[in-house]
Protein backbone atom coordinates (compact mmCIF):
# COMPACT_ATOMS: atom_id res chain seq x y z
CA UNK A 1 0.00 0.00 0.00
CA UNK A 2 2.71 2.44 1.00
CA UNK A 3 4.92 1.61 -1.98
CA UNK A 4 1.94 1.93 -4.23
CA UNK A 5 1.17 5.40 -2.90
CA UNK A 6 4.79 6.44 -3.25
CA UNK A 7 4.66 5.40 -6.89
CA UNK A 8 1.51 7.43 -7.42
CA UNK A 9 2.93 10.54 -5.79
CA UNK A 10 6.16 10.15 -7.74
CA UNK A 11 4.26 9.81 -10.99
CA UNK A 12 2.45 13.07 -10.35
CA UNK A 13 5.62 14.88 -9.29
CA UNK A 14 6.43 16.10 -12.77
CA UNK A 15 4.48 19.24 -13.80
CA UNK A 16 4.07 18.12 -17.41
CA UNK A 17 2.90 14.73 -16.26
CA UNK A 18 0.37 16.39 -13.99
CA UNK A 19 -0.79 18.41 -16.98
CA UNK A 20 -1.22 15.24 -19.05
CA UNK A 21 -3.10 13.66 -16.17
CA UNK A 22 -5.40 16.65 -15.68
CA UNK A 23 -6.23 16.66 -19.36
CA UNK A 24 -7.16 13.00 -19.17
CA UNK A 25 -9.40 13.80 -16.22
CA UNK A 26 -11.59 15.65 -18.70
CA UNK A 27 -12.00 12.55 -20.85
CA UNK A 28 -10.14 9.80 -22.75
CA UNK A 29 -7.60 11.02 -25.31
CA UNK A 30 -5.21 9.52 -27.83
CA UNK A 31 -1.47 10.27 -27.58
CA UNK A 32 -1.50 12.39 -30.73
CA UNK A 33 -4.40 14.50 -29.43
CA UNK A 34 -2.65 15.11 -26.14
CA UNK A 35 0.62 16.06 -27.79
CA UNK A 36 -1.04 18.64 -30.05
CA UNK A 37 -1.87 21.08 -27.29
CA UNK A 38 1.07 20.43 -24.99
CA UNK A 39 4.47 22.10 -25.39
CA UNK A 40 6.27 18.76 -25.51
CA UNK A 41 6.95 16.22 -28.21
CA UNK A 42 4.79 13.23 -28.89
CA UNK A 43 7.49 10.77 -27.68
CA UNK A 44 7.70 12.79 -24.46
CA UNK A 45 3.95 12.52 -23.98
CA UNK A 46 4.18 8.78 -24.60
CA UNK A 47 6.87 8.54 -21.96
CA UNK A 48 4.75 10.45 -19.42
CA UNK A 49 1.79 8.21 -20.17
CA UNK A 50 3.97 5.17 -19.62
CA UNK A 51 4.91 6.39 -16.13
CA UNK A 52 1.30 7.22 -15.31
CA UNK A 53 0.24 3.80 -16.51
CA UNK A 54 2.89 2.03 -14.43
CA UNK A 55 1.66 3.93 -11.38
CA UNK A 56 -1.84 2.66 -12.07
CA UNK A 57 -3.17 6.15 -12.67
CA UNK A 58 -4.19 5.64 -16.29
CA UNK A 59 -5.20 2.74 -18.49
CA UNK A 60 -5.03 2.41 -22.26
CA UNK A 61 -6.94 0.55 -24.92
CA UNK A 62 -6.55 0.17 -28.70
CA UNK A 63 -8.92 2.20 -30.84
CA UNK A 64 -8.28 1.21 -34.44
CA UNK A 65 -4.70 2.20 -35.18
CA UNK A 66 -4.57 4.53 -32.19
CA UNK A 67 -4.14 3.96 -28.49
CA UNK A 68 -6.53 5.83 -26.24
CA UNK A 69 -5.67 6.67 -22.64
CA UNK A 70 -7.99 7.36 -19.75
CA UNK A 71 -7.75 7.85 -16.03
CA UNK A 72 -8.01 4.75 -13.88
CA UNK A 73 -10.10 5.82 -10.88
CA UNK A 74 -8.63 2.95 -8.88
CA UNK A 75 -5.18 4.54 -8.81
CA UNK A 76 -6.35 7.84 -7.44
CA UNK A 77 -8.58 5.97 -5.09
CA UNK A 78 -5.59 4.76 -3.11
CA UNK A 79 -4.22 8.25 -2.68
CA UNK A 80 -7.65 9.43 -1.67
CA UNK A 81 -8.04 6.61 0.83
CA UNK A 82 -4.91 7.72 2.62
CA UNK A 83 -6.13 11.31 2.98
CA UNK A 84 -9.58 10.09 3.90
CA UNK A 85 -8.22 8.19 6.85
CA UNK A 86 -6.02 11.10 7.85
CA UNK A 87 -8.96 13.50 8.03
CA UNK A 88 -11.05 11.04 10.01
CA UNK A 89 -8.40 11.06 12.69
CA UNK A 90 -7.65 14.78 12.56
CA UNK A 91 -11.32 15.71 12.83
CA UNK A 92 -11.81 13.32 15.71
CA UNK A 93 -8.96 15.13 17.46
CA UNK A 94 -10.69 18.44 16.70
CA UNK A 95 -13.95 17.18 18.19
CA UNK A 96 -12.23 15.95 21.33
CA UNK A 97 -10.46 19.27 21.74
CA UNK A 98 -13.60 21.36 21.13
CA UNK A 99 -15.63 19.41 23.66
CA UNK A 100 -12.83 19.12 26.21
CA UNK A 101 -12.24 22.83 25.99
CA UNK A 102 -15.92 23.56 26.44
CA UNK A 103 -16.17 21.50 29.60
CA UNK A 104 -13.28 23.40 31.11
CA UNK A 105 -14.96 26.68 30.27
CA UNK A 106 -11.84 28.54 29.17
CA UNK A 107 -11.59 32.23 28.61
CA UNK A 108 -12.67 33.31 25.13
Amino acid sequence: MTDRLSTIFAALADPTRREVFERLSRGPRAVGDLAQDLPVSRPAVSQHLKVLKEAGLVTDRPDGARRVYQIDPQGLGQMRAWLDQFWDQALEAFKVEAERNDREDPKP
Partner: protein
Amino acid sequence: MNQIIQPAAIKKSLTVAVSPEKAFAVFTDGFDRWWPKSHTIGSGSLKQAIIEPRQGGRWYGIDVDGSENEWGEVLAWEPPGRLLLAWRINGQWTYDPGCNTEIEVLFTATADGQTQVEFEHRHLERLGEGAEGARIAMDSPGGWGGILAGFKQAAES
Protein backbone atom coordinates in the same frame (compact mmCIF):
# COMPACT_ATOMS: atom_id res chain seq x y z
CA MET B 1 -19.32 13.74 -25.04
CA ASN B 2 -16.57 13.11 -22.58
CA GLN B 3 -17.07 11.93 -19.08
CA ILE B 4 -15.12 13.79 -16.42
CA ILE B 5 -13.20 11.42 -14.21
CA GLN B 6 -11.92 12.86 -10.97
CA PRO B 7 -11.35 11.51 -7.50
CA ALA B 8 -14.35 12.25 -5.37
CA ALA B 9 -13.82 14.92 -2.75
CA ILE B 10 -13.28 13.70 0.78
CA LYS B 11 -16.34 14.58 2.80
CA LYS B 12 -16.75 14.25 6.54
CA SER B 13 -19.65 15.07 8.75
CA LEU B 14 -19.50 15.23 12.52
CA THR B 15 -21.44 16.71 15.38
CA VAL B 16 -19.58 18.61 18.05
CA ALA B 17 -21.27 19.33 21.38
CA VAL B 18 -20.50 23.06 21.36
CA SER B 19 -21.90 26.13 19.61
CA PRO B 20 -20.82 27.01 16.04
CA GLU B 21 -18.95 30.01 17.46
CA LYS B 22 -17.01 27.75 19.77
CA ALA B 23 -16.41 25.10 17.11
CA PHE B 24 -15.15 27.69 14.64
CA ALA B 25 -12.88 29.21 17.28
CA VAL B 26 -11.36 25.88 18.28
CA PHE B 27 -10.88 24.88 14.66
CA THR B 28 -9.05 28.13 13.85
CA ASP B 29 -7.70 29.97 16.92
CA GLY B 30 -7.33 26.62 18.66
CA PHE B 31 -5.84 24.93 15.61
CA ASP B 32 -2.56 24.37 17.38
CA ARG B 33 -4.27 22.48 20.18
CA TRP B 34 -5.66 19.68 18.04
CA TRP B 35 -3.56 19.52 14.87
CA PRO B 36 -1.07 16.60 14.97
CA LYS B 37 2.36 17.94 15.87
CA SER B 38 4.54 15.03 14.90
CA HIS B 39 4.65 15.78 11.19
CA THR B 40 6.01 19.00 9.89
CA ILE B 41 6.55 20.53 6.51
CA GLY B 42 10.07 21.52 7.51
CA SER B 43 13.02 19.45 8.60
CA GLY B 44 12.59 20.00 12.32
CA SER B 45 9.81 19.22 14.76
CA LEU B 46 6.59 21.18 14.62
CA LYS B 47 6.23 23.54 17.55
CA GLN B 48 3.13 25.47 16.62
CA ALA B 49 0.45 25.37 13.92
CA ILE B 50 -1.33 28.58 12.99
CA ILE B 51 -4.30 29.73 10.91
CA GLU B 52 -4.32 33.53 10.63
CA PRO B 53 -7.84 34.81 11.34
CA ARG B 54 -8.64 36.63 8.12
CA GLN B 55 -9.19 36.14 4.43
CA GLY B 56 -5.81 35.93 2.76
CA GLY B 57 -4.23 34.95 6.07
CA ARG B 58 -1.43 32.45 6.22
CA TRP B 59 -1.82 28.86 7.31
CA TYR B 60 1.53 27.64 8.52
CA GLY B 61 3.66 25.79 11.00
CA ILE B 62 6.57 26.92 13.15
CA ASP B 63 9.32 24.41 13.90
CA VAL B 64 11.12 24.19 17.22
CA ASP B 65 14.09 25.88 15.55
CA GLY B 66 11.89 28.85 14.70
CA SER B 67 11.63 28.26 10.97
CA GLU B 68 8.24 28.76 9.38
CA ASN B 69 6.62 26.52 6.79
CA GLU B 70 3.73 27.58 4.61
CA TRP B 71 0.85 25.14 4.15
CA GLY B 72 -1.55 27.33 2.21
CA GLU B 73 -3.79 30.30 2.92
CA VAL B 74 -7.23 31.31 4.10
CA LEU B 75 -9.44 31.71 1.03
CA ALA B 76 -12.60 32.61 2.92
CA TRP B 77 -12.99 33.63 6.57
CA GLU B 78 -16.66 33.73 7.52
CA PRO B 79 -17.05 33.01 11.26
CA PRO B 80 -18.85 31.17 12.60
CA GLY B 81 -20.32 29.46 9.55
CA ARG B 82 -17.62 28.83 6.97
CA LEU B 83 -13.89 28.43 6.53
CA LEU B 84 -12.20 27.84 3.18
CA LEU B 85 -8.52 26.93 3.11
CA ALA B 86 -6.07 26.30 0.31
CA TRP B 87 -4.16 23.10 1.12
CA ARG B 88 -0.90 23.28 -0.82
CA ILE B 89 0.81 20.38 0.85
CA ASN B 90 1.60 17.73 -1.68
CA GLY B 91 2.19 14.02 -1.40
CA GLN B 92 5.76 14.67 -0.35
CA TRP B 93 4.44 16.55 2.65
CA THR B 94 6.05 19.71 1.39
CA TYR B 95 4.63 23.07 0.34
CA ASP B 96 3.94 23.41 -3.36
CA PRO B 97 2.27 26.63 -4.58
CA GLY B 98 1.00 24.70 -7.60
CA CYS B 99 -0.75 22.13 -5.47
CA ASN B 100 -4.13 23.78 -5.48
CA THR B 101 -6.49 21.69 -3.37
CA GLU B 102 -9.22 23.19 -1.20
CA ILE B 103 -10.62 22.46 2.23
CA GLU B 104 -14.03 23.81 3.11
CA VAL B 105 -15.48 23.54 6.60
CA LEU B 106 -19.08 24.50 7.33
CA PHE B 107 -20.37 24.96 10.89
CA THR B 108 -24.13 24.84 11.36
CA ALA B 109 -26.11 25.06 14.59
CA THR B 110 -28.35 22.10 15.31
CA ALA B 111 -31.72 22.31 17.06
CA ASP B 112 -30.24 20.97 20.30
CA GLY B 113 -27.50 23.56 20.53
CA GLN B 114 -24.69 21.53 19.01
CA THR B 115 -22.78 22.08 15.80
CA GLN B 116 -22.93 20.08 12.63
CA VAL B 117 -19.51 20.22 10.97
CA GLU B 118 -19.38 19.51 7.26
CA PHE B 119 -15.83 19.02 6.02
CA GLU B 120 -14.70 18.71 2.41
CA HIS B 121 -11.23 18.30 0.89
CA ARG B 122 -11.57 18.67 -2.87
CA HIS B 123 -9.65 18.90 -6.15
CA LEU B 124 -7.55 15.93 -5.10
CA GLU B 125 -6.47 15.34 -8.69
CA ARG B 126 -4.13 18.30 -8.13
CA LEU B 127 -2.03 16.47 -5.55
CA GLY B 128 1.32 15.11 -6.56
CA GLU B 129 4.95 16.14 -6.37
CA GLY B 130 7.28 13.54 -5.01
CA ALA B 131 7.08 10.32 -3.12
CA GLU B 132 9.57 10.40 -0.32
CA GLY B 133 7.56 12.48 2.11
CA ALA B 134 4.48 10.35 1.72
CA ARG B 135 6.56 7.37 2.62
CA ILE B 136 7.94 9.10 5.71
CA ALA B 137 4.51 10.26 6.78
CA MET B 138 3.04 6.81 6.59
CA ASP B 139 5.96 4.73 7.79
CA SER B 140 6.76 6.65 10.94
CA PRO B 141 6.10 4.78 14.18
CA GLY B 142 2.40 4.18 14.38
CA GLY B 143 1.73 6.34 11.33
CA TRP B 144 -1.00 8.92 11.63
CA GLY B 145 -3.05 6.68 13.86
CA GLY B 146 -0.39 6.49 16.53
CA ILE B 147 0.30 10.19 16.43
CA LEU B 148 -3.30 11.18 16.75
CA ALA B 149 -3.95 8.64 19.43
CA GLY B 150 -1.18 10.33 21.38
CA PHE B 151 -2.76 13.69 20.84
CA LYS B 152 -6.17 12.51 21.90
CA GLN B 153 -4.72 11.05 25.06
CA ALA B 154 -3.07 14.36 25.90
CA ALA B 155 -6.21 16.31 25.13
CA GLU B 156 -8.39 14.13 27.30
CA SER B 157 -6.04 13.84 30.27
